[in-house]
């Protein structure tokens, strides 16, 4: 732990939510434009969080806010681990803690809507987690280590060896951002057949915590995409932004699917193409240099 590391931590702690907030604002703006509206100011997510923090803390269950705090800190931890180029497999497990904390938080409120949302989100875990770990495996096969240092130090990009996993990861991001067509666990503004899914019983500061955690999560997930072209950071960032924009577009042009569809899509298409990619890496013995 030297001065530099501490500086990085502070930078991430402050910078990531700003970035995430902007990204979220841009998302709402683009969505509005795609629908022929003007849309809210870019800083709207910031105003929302500020407002939520100034509201009463209305709860149904004394422990419900504990889970969202766990969610927040573990999202931050996984982001920090990503920044510090830790073991990728480990990052995924830490990230799972965060996802599970939110699910358990939703379940813990006991509201039927939240429980339906949570059990759908559990199914989302089943869909995306294998793909994420296969991504980690691809990194291992290419670099001989699960630590991200090797990916970031390499001079050639990951993407040229893992195009199929890249495609699968776009869908995974779509699931993780809870965007249409996979937005069934916490339904977004317009669509309220599950009220607000997992977050139905969260209001005020508790919900603000979830929103802030989402900001970190945006950065974290885009960071996973960045890794595909980390050798030239500029291109990596560009790809991250492009994928993010693509997901916004997909969000706006698709209708929600059943969770069963997602599971089928994931286990039949995503897993298969990822495994094909892994098999290619394994047999070609390609190495990232």
């Amino acid at each position, binding site marked *: 732990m030297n001065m530099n590391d501490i500086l990085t931590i502070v930078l991430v702690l402050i910078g990531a939510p700003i970035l995430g907030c902007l990204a979220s604002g841009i998302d709402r703006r683009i969505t509005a434009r795609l629908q022929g509206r003007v849309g809210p100011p870019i800083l709207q997510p910031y105003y929302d969080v500020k407002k939520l923090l100034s509201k009463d803390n209305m709860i149904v269950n004394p422990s419900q806010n504990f889970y969202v705090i766990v969610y927040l800190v573990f999202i931050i931890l996984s982001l920090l681990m990503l920044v510090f180029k830790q073991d990728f497999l480990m990052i995924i497990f830490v990230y799972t803690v965060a996802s599970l904390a939110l699910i358990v938080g939703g379940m813990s409120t*006991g509201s039927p809507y939240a*429980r339906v949302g949570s059990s759908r989100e559990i199914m989302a875990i089943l869909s995306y987690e*294998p793909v994420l770990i296969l991504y980690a*495996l691809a990194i291992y096969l290419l670099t001989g280590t699960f630590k991200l240092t090797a990916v970031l130090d390499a001079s050639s990009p990951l993407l040229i060896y893992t195009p199929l996993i890249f495609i699968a990861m776009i869908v995974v991001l779509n699931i993780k951002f809870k965007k249409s067509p996979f937005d069934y666990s916490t339904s977004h503004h317009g669509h309220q057949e599950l009220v607000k899914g997992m977050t139905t019983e969260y209001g*005020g500061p508790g919900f603000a915590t979830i929103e802030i955690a989402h900001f970190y999560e945006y950065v974290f997930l885009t960071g996973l995409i960045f890794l595909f072209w980390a050798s030239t950071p500029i291109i990596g960032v560009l790809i991250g932004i492009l994928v993010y924009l693509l997901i916004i577009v997909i969000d706006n042009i698709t209708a929600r699917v059943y969770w069963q569809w997602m599971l089928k899509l994931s286990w039949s298409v995503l897993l298969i193409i990822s495994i094909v990619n892994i098999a290619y890496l394994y047999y070609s013995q390609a190495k990232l240099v």
Partner: protein
Amino acid sequence: MIENTVMLLIIVPLLFSLLFVALPKSLYKILAWALFILGAALSVNLVLDGTGVVQIGEPNFAMLENVVLILEVLVILFILAVSAKYKNWPTLGLGIISAAIFAYTFSNVPKVEGASFNIDQFSQVMILIVNIIGTAIILFATGYMDQYEEHRHLNRQKTFYFTMSFFLAAMNGLVMADTLGWLFLFWELTTLCSFVLISYNMDEEGINNGFRALALNLVGGIALSIGIILLATNNVSTLSGIGTYAGTNAAALAAVALPVALLCVGGFAKSAQMPFQSWLLGAMVAPTPVSALLHSSTMVNAGVFLVVKLVPAYAGTSLGTAIAVYGSFTFVMCSALALSQRNAKRVLAYSTIANLGLIIASAGIGTPLAVAAAIMLILFHAISKALLFLCTGEIEHTIGSRDIEDMSGLIKKAPLLTTLAALGMVSMLLPPFGVLLTKWVSMEAASSNPVVIVFLILGSALTTVYYAKWLGTILSSSMDKNAVPHKKLETYFPLSLLGLAIVVTSIFVFPIYDYFVKPQVDILLKAAPAISGLAGEFTTEIGAFTYIVIFVVLALAILIYLATKNMFTPRMSSYYMCGENNLERDRLMFRNGLCSYEKSSVSNIYLQNTFGESKLTTLGYAISIILIAIALLGGIGL
């Protein structure tokens, strides 16, 4: 010194089993406490004594060998007698085969001159598990069995406690014995204990399931004894001798491949791996302490214990790869099956089989890293699973059901019990706890074998899902069932002890690794895993697991929660039910169109149509039998 401890470890539980028979029921609590304290003291003492081989030479040997022979005859006679009594012909047939093999062994196989107990670090770990967790479970039983028997109008507690402590003796012998003949005796004794305890209820279901367990374990026992006979033709009569012999040259390695494969099949049967899994599921009819002791934390571990001990004989060979694929296949298959289960004990049973499969897969991979993972997983899994089984038992007594859906809202009614159960589940699937850490190690170790790693990845995702469902359900705040928590010391002490053990072992995972696992892997593979640990980090050659950071962050989360708890004036309100709540009677009721009230109910997703037992079991049987056949054929050298 160590000789005495070894002998005491077998004699003390035996003594207690007699005491349980001799003394009245009112003294059982005191006996159980005494057994717990003695067991813990003895096992710690064994660890302090260090490692070593205890030779039993003349004249004791001749006497003991006769005892062993007599016991073996008795075991076979017992099997023949009960299976004839209940007209269970398959078991009788298997019993006759065992008898024939025994007769063959007795007349044809050269006698050994001495017997030995081999106390290495692995045995120490197992002894700690058996004697601390095991006795704690017996202690738990004293607070559990009265109510259990009351519900079922039984009065067989003498049998219960006798068998339980007798089992501890057998299990202690099993993990310490080095001579294969003796090991086999202890092996069969644990099978018998398991049979007696599964059919404890003496109803039809219990007896049928007991016989299924007996029959399948006899199959394993037969494989084991054939393996032992084959080994004897190579002049190998000890467990540690197999590795030494296999290490001499390539021809020796090939020669022991088939017997080793047979021994492994014996281990698979004991650990209820895929084609044998039905006995463990059937075994869930037994009282919960039995499930916790025999069917999750100790006896089923005997199988993987044997498989891990055999590592030097197959590490790096194609037999090893076959075992790894087989284990990982069981892991993914049973995790998938667990997904569709609503019965908590069945979920735990499948999860146990799956984790044992993971251990076998790690052992099969055979790199130092993987073997280290296997040994650590045995330890961590035993603690977590024992806790989970006991919690399930206690939950069943609290709400009168073992259906996961009925457990919703448990946290409101029995907060401590639920917290402990939640800790157990979290420790099974999330960092920074031991099971996940070892899963991580085994995944990293398996990443060189594409088939195994893909199975492990799928299995691990499935594991997350079925535990997440359960975890969320017990932590949700909507209660459907009436619950009567009873706070008894002998119930909550073992539970809290196990909960504490999970946290402590997870924090001190590196010292544990350093003291127990590293030297053991060194013995088995003559190479230590390249794991280093600096300040709460677990570093392998291909990755690092900074578990201490996660502990810190978890503590931080709790602190933040406590600090901010009252910062934003909390105000309780009711659920959002579109405003149609019923606030007087039940907050989960809503008013329907006819102005009467109805209960809302939500259940988890079980995917019966995809992962149901009827869909997957046949497939599982077919593939696992093929895999075992491949392992055996590989053993013959085809």
